């Protein structure tokens, strides 16, 4: 699949950067004919993935998060990578209402899954986590 456009961002694992990440994700998505609602969905999904890296991956400690946004002919892909503590049980973490914190809803992965067309998670303890999310773009008819 040919890459039409790509941006890679490296951010520190700070809560203030979660907003910057999702706004960047929305700006990148704006080059495709998405509806405003679809752009909002992308913002939530990216916000969840980056929040997870800050909260769970690095446990609020300093670290680096890499966000790669790629536009292909028929899809938009977001890859969020951290080098934090990793997820012990991915299947368990993906279940709605699973959270290691009582004040949290444990809906992070559920939102990523509902709002994107594909969600792939790869993680290794003490190595880090990779989250890959894909949103299909509408196939535009040629004139």
């Amino acid at each position, binding site marked *: 699949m040919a890459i039409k456009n790509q941006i890679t961002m490296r951010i520190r694992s700070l809560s*203030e950067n979660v*907003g910057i990440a*999702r706004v960047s994700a929305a700006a990148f998505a704006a080059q495709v004919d998405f509806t405003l*609602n679809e752009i*909002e969905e992308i913002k939530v999904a990216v916000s969840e993935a980056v929040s997870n890296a800050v909260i769970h991956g690095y446990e609020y400690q300093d670290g680096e998060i890499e966000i790669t946004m790629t536009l292909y002919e028929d899809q938009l892909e977001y890859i969020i990578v951290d080098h934090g503590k990793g997820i012990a049980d991915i299947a368990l973490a993906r279940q709605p209402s699973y959270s290691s914190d009582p*004040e949290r*809803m444990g*809906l992070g992965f559920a939102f990523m899954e509902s709002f994107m067309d594909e969600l792939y998670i790869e993680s290794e303890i003490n190595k880090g986590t990779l989250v890959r999310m894909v949103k299909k773009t509408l196939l535009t008819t040629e004139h």
Partner: protein
Amino acid sequence: MNIVTSLKRGVLLVKVEGELDMHVATEFRETVDNALESSGVKHVLFNLEAVKFIDSSGLGVLLGRYKKISGLGGIMSATQIQPQVLQIFELSGLLKIIKLYHSEKEALECL
């Protein structure tokens, strides 16, 4: 995020402006909890007209406040919720526990 609390007819009114994510979660929680304690009231109405974004971190704070408020025997409700925020409320199941109103006036008349 900007958050203003006031008292109206024995209801704690919380007007929130901005994006409710993990960056503001602690401040949001503490402001509401402090206002609840200092006012001594038990019903809380959130005005969400100026909330343009919420994710699971913001929802978590609302859920935590719901547990606290219902523990006090109070009712938690919200008004002027924006469509994108409403979608998140629906998906999370929060709509089952929070009553929504069109306006502050309508909410205060019902509480």
